């Protein structure tokens, strides 16, 4: 089996494949009540479109703030980023098993890294939230798991010196859509994805905690990710 297929981690085992295909069929009936709820909610929010534009503006503001930190060591911009992201990074680390003190210390280090590495940020490749997540994750591996993290080599052309504004906007928009799509996932699927990222659980550990068999979990995570993709298109 080749794993180049980005979403499906195909399993070379007939029983499991059967289990997965049975599940996908069962799941092909879209959980209607969930979608209905979301739809009703969206209509209730007066001017849902406006809210979206506002969120996108917020995302672009983060990009501007990181650039201000990079170009002019802007402390006010950094303080704003700190106020928004630090409490979330701290939660992420605590959910990954760090005690409050360690999470606090580690979050400060993550935010300091943001300051020191602001020149590495490329808004055409990642959203600020994605970037901070990767810094926090790597710090978590260093600190909590005490392991090295091998990183892939960069592409030969490297980061662009002058990131293209339109491209940056497009990427921020896509990430915003991804966030929206995540919010509309059936709660069960969303929970599994969260566990995979935060609970620091392997598939088998998730199985032990939720009582679901491994094949079911793999296929549910896969379905959830496929659904995300579908919404993004």
């Amino acid at each position, binding site marked *: 089996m080749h794993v180049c297929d980005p979403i499906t981690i195909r399993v070379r085992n007939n029983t499991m494949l059967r289990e997965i295909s049975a599940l996908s069929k069962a799941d092909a009936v879209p959980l209607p009540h969930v979608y209905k709820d979301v739809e009703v909610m969206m209509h209730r929010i007066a001017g849902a479109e406006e809210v979206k534009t506002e969120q996108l503006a917020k995302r672009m503001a983060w990009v501007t703030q990181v650039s201000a930190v990079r170009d002019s060591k802007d402390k006010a911009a950094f303080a704003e980023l700190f106020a928004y992201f630090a409490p979330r990074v701290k939660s992420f680390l605590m959910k990954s098993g760090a005690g409050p003190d360690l999470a606090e210390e580690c979050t400060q280090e993550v935010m300091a890294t943001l300051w020191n590495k602001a020149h590495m940020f490329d808004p055409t490749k990642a959203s600020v939230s994605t970037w901070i997540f990767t810094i926090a994750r790597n710090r978590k591996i260093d600190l909590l798991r005490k392991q090295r993290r091998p990183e892939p*080599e960069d592409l030969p052309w490297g980061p662009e010196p002058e990131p293209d504004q339109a491209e940056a906007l497009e990427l921020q928009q896509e990430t915003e859509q991804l966030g929206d799509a995540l919010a509309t996932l059936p709660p069960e699927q969303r929970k599994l994805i969260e566990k995979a990222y935060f609970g620091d659980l392997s598939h088998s550990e998730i199985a032990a905690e939720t009582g679901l068999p491994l094949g079911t979990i793999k296929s549910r995570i896969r379905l959830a990710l496929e659904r995300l993709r579908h919404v993004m298109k």
Partner: protein
Amino acid sequence: MGYAAGTLPEAFSLVVATHISMCDTCRAALAEYDAVGGEIMLDVDPTEMAEDALAATMALINGTSEDPPEKPVQRTGGIFPSPLRDYVNGDIDEVKWRRVGGGVSQMILPTSKDASVRLLRIPAGMAVPDHGHRGTELTLVLQGAFVDETDRFGAGDVEVADEDLHHTPVAEEGMDCICLAATDAPLRFNGLLPRIAQRFVGI
């Protein structure tokens, strides 16, 4: 996804990082998984930071001398992508091969203890004895190719094997097959001789 979430053992992360260096599809997939992680992080209930947290962070920043701009990690020819070169301390010429029997050689790379990763060299046309797996095995082909009962794997391909797979990988003719293989449990050889040899080579 496990790599994006940061929950894989180091040995598996090394195989994934090396593969991503060779495969743009998976590089793009990783970017997506990272983005999912970022959105999930945004959506948690925030936990209040200590009162002096911002000041403490500024002190931390002032305390560190500015990092010299990092050199982008780039390919410099050779067979091994840079994450792997970091573990071998060089390219293929630096590998300290040890024979493990049947013409096959290996070098175990130092990682955390929760899983192991090794380079394998299977001479062209030779087979690795028929074996099964107790856990998960990720095998990335770096040079040459191998064929087993189910498929053919060429340079850049990854094979994922689990408890249900028993196979006899055979290196294709023409070139030695060099692989990077990570496992979280010892293999299960079906023959008696390989089983005895196994005790001494630690696969």
